């Protein structure tokens, strides 16, 4: 088998496996990827064994190792910057929405509170107001009002929290990737 035939076979197998995995995800059948992916790998390896020409020599290996190292460097630096920026939405005060609560004493002696959300990093005012809600009688706040208040606060921070979660995920992925790199580095360091 020639190299081009092997590459064509690998491409066809990859397309078939991708189609099967896609179908299984849509159909909710998770047994298909468990079978299809290892089977695809076996078929590709079997095709590779049939190739009579050189597929990868030391130049190819050196190129791959350098490309992998450069990729790791770029991903780690870029990912670290992205993770820090995204996570700062959780810990940074200027990036968080400004939520104020103003207490009023009504004519009948009861207390009401107006909660307002303003744009992040802005001076609270009518121009920067995003939304507001009023709890008419704080002393007689019912369950519905309490839930509405909690939801209001949670929704105000939800965008920042999801960004922070994305940042944390990227950060954890980078740490895991660096840890795997370190393990392989130590392994090959011992081996050679």
């Amino acid at each position, binding site marked *: 088998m020639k190299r081009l035939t092997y590459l064509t076979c690998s491409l066809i197998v990859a397309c078939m496996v991708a189609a099967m995995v896609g179908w299984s995800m849509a159909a909710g059948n998770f047994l298909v990827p468990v079978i299809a992916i290892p089977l695809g790998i076996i078929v590709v390896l079997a095709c590779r064994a049939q190739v009579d*020409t*050189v597929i*990868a*020599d*030391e*130049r*190819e290996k*050196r190129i791959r190792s350098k490309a992998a190292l450069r990729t790791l460097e770029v991903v780690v630096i870029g990912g670290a910057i992205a993770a820090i920026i995204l996570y700062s939405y959780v810990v940074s005060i200027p990036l968080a929405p400004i939520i104020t609560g103003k207490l009023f004493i009504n004519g009948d002696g009861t207390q009401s509170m107006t909660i307002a959300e303003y744009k992040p990093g802005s001076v609270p005012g009518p121009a920067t107001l995003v939304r507001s809600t009023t709890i008419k009688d704080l002393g007689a706040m019912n369950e519905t009002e309490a839930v509405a208040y909690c939801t209001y606060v949670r929704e105000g921070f939800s965008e920042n929290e999801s960004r922070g979660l994305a940042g944390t995920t990227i950060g954890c992925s980078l740490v895991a990737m660096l840890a795997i790199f370190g393990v392989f580095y130590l392994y090959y360091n011992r081996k050679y």
Partner: protein
Amino acid sequence: MKNRIKVLRAERNMTQEQLAELAGVTRNTIISMEKDKFCPSLKLGYRIAHVFGVGIDDVFTYEEDKDGPFADDE
């Protein structure tokens, strides 16, 4: 690292493809070596010298890099 692969190949009327096959590498590797872009390992160096039936010194000549003897061959 300089090499005489192209000269030795021409002397033996050998194509890049033939040399690649005998040395167990791809043709691209031979092309890169002839252009002095790729420095082969000691093992491949010996293999190429063996294909030509000469010593490794007759194929490869060590030249100290401008940046020093330990400069990376990037």
